[in-house]
């Protein structure tokens, strides 16, 4: 098969669109794992919840899907704060060995996954739900892309970059980076570990939910869409290195490109197998991540 210029544009732009979305989900997961060692396997379930919230607000009251970000973001941030206080802070305060803590918080996340997924099944049923928004074709370098995809990817990238700037410039951002680099030293310098943990958990979950709101404009929803995104985010986080924000951004874009290329050049059903294979290979060959220290 020849690689025509249009096909290259298709793959590159399509890959960056997918990758921008992946980067935002992965950034949220990395914030939770890189800082607190809470491997939140329910991360994608918050994406699913955000997507349904936007769907309901849009279809019931006609709220513009992009405006719902202003609701899903703060709401999920609040939920994250509460969940951290109720669940994870208790486990982390237990003072056990690091590995036992990680396993226990992993189990908590699995519990959360069950709860959220089945709550969604009760609330919205297992039927496909969707709506159409900005589904107009846009010409771009000789290729055609739906406008909603470009908008979603642009918003996702903008949020990711805004967070990066926040991390570099703001006082809280500096505290977060200090905790990632050296938890003990940062605490000696007067940073309140538990408070920053809670905030980061909330921000991480808000990123996932906001991504979900964006995704609801593109795809039909079921209560089961969360887990594949969790797996993808895990692959990206492991690819980019734990606690490495730039690594997550780049990793997301790279994975988006690789996946889009494999779908165009091979077959679409190979996508999930490829994700898991990449994840397994990296875990076995380099457990600290490709860009990790």
């Amino acid at each position, binding site marked *: 098969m020849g690689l025509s210029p249009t096909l290259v544009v298709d793959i590159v732009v399509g890959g960056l669109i997918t990758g921008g979305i992946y980067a935002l989900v992965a950034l949220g997961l990395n914030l939770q794992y890189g800082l607190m060692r809470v*491997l939140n*396997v329910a991360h994608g379930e918050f994406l699913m919840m955000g997507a349904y919230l936007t769907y309901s607000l849009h279809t019931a009251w006609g709220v513009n899907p992009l405006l719902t970000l202003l609701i899903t973001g703060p709401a999920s941030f609040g939920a994250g704060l509460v969940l951290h206080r109720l*669940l994870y802070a*208790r*486990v982390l305060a237990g003072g056990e060995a*690091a*590995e*036992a803590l*990680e*396993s*226990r918080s*992993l*189990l*908590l996340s*699995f*519990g*959360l*996954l*069950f*709860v*959220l*997924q*089945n*709550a969604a*099944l*009760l609330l919205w049923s297992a039927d496909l739900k969707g709506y159409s928004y900005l589904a107009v074709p846009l010409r771009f370098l000789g290729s055609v892309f739906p406008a909603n995809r470009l908008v979603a990817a642009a918003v996702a990238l903008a949020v990711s970059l805004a967070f990066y700037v926040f991390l570099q410039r703001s006082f809280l951002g500096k505290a977060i980076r200090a905790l990632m680099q050296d938890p003990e030293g940062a605490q000696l310098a007067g940073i309140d570990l538990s408070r920053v943990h809670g905030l980061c958990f909330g921000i991480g979950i808000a990123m996932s939910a906001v991504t979900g709101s964006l995704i609801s404009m593109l795809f039909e929803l079921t209560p089961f869409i969360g887990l594949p995104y969790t*797996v993808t985010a*895990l692959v990206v986080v492991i690819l980019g290195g734990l606690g490495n924000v730039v690594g997550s951004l780049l990793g997301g874009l790279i994975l988006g490109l690789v996946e889009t290329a494999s779908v165009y050049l091979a077959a679409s*059903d*190979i996508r*999930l*197998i490829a994700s*898991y*294979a990449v*994840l*397994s290979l990296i*875990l*076995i060959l380099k*457990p600290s991540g490709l860009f990790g220290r």
Partner: protein
Amino acid sequence: MAGKLALVLLLMALIAAPEILSPYHRSLALAILADVALAVSWAFFSGPSRYLSLATGAFFGAGAYLTAIVGARVPWPLPVLGGALMGCAMALVVGALALRLRGPYFAVFTFGLAELAKHTLIWYETGVTGTVGRLLLAPPGPWTLYYTVLCLAGLAVVTALLLRRSRWGYALVGIGADEERAETLGIDTTRVKVGTFALSAAFMGAVGAAMAPRWTYLDPQVFNPFVSFQTVIMALLGGATTVAGPIVGAVFLGLASEILLLKFRYFYMLGLGLTLIVVVLALPSGLAGLASRLRPSPSPLPRPQP
């Protein structure tokens, strides 16, 4: 003495059960026995070693699919033996690769295994053999299945009891407490870990193979991550570091799911998630741990004062 008598009575009741029970209750007993076998064999590896394995669904699925492929072409106990070998072989490969990973990485890797197996099988069946599933014709009778699974559950319990008192059992506890120290003390940690992991996987594969004839039609969806979670929840609910714990957990959840799963499916699953959260937060050593905490301990060991 009373305990031994109760055990003998329980065993006799289990052996006589198919004669007494209605077909419905026999099938319920079969499902619970299979859960007991899974939970006990999960716990004798993951309990002491603290390696949180989510590969149960993968080994169970491999055994079940093997039965579906060989069908009625081989006489009955052979598919179960084949399932055990299959689980064992998979665990040897996966264990050699993945047991170097610690903490949640191991859990994630083993969780991915069932999904990887499922999607590879779907891709293979649709692309190469052109089928999407397998029909199980002429399955063995329900009595045969019951006694097969009863044997497996009994074997798993005996293995767990023997392992606890063996050098390997102590080595596993040592690995769970501090792997580096265990290695320094001369334990061949890789051999102990991979060996026990393979042994537990053999049971899971065998249970999968033995339970397959309950469904008349099998497709790659039998690689179900839910099996992995349910096993973990059963073992943790009962208490993963004891032998009785996983049995208690399996019986409890087996009955609960039978009563609730069909009528209130989503509420049941939601409740299962909440149970897991509560167990992790409030009952770190499971129901068995709770029982031993309530019972006054005969002679508390004096704690050395620092």
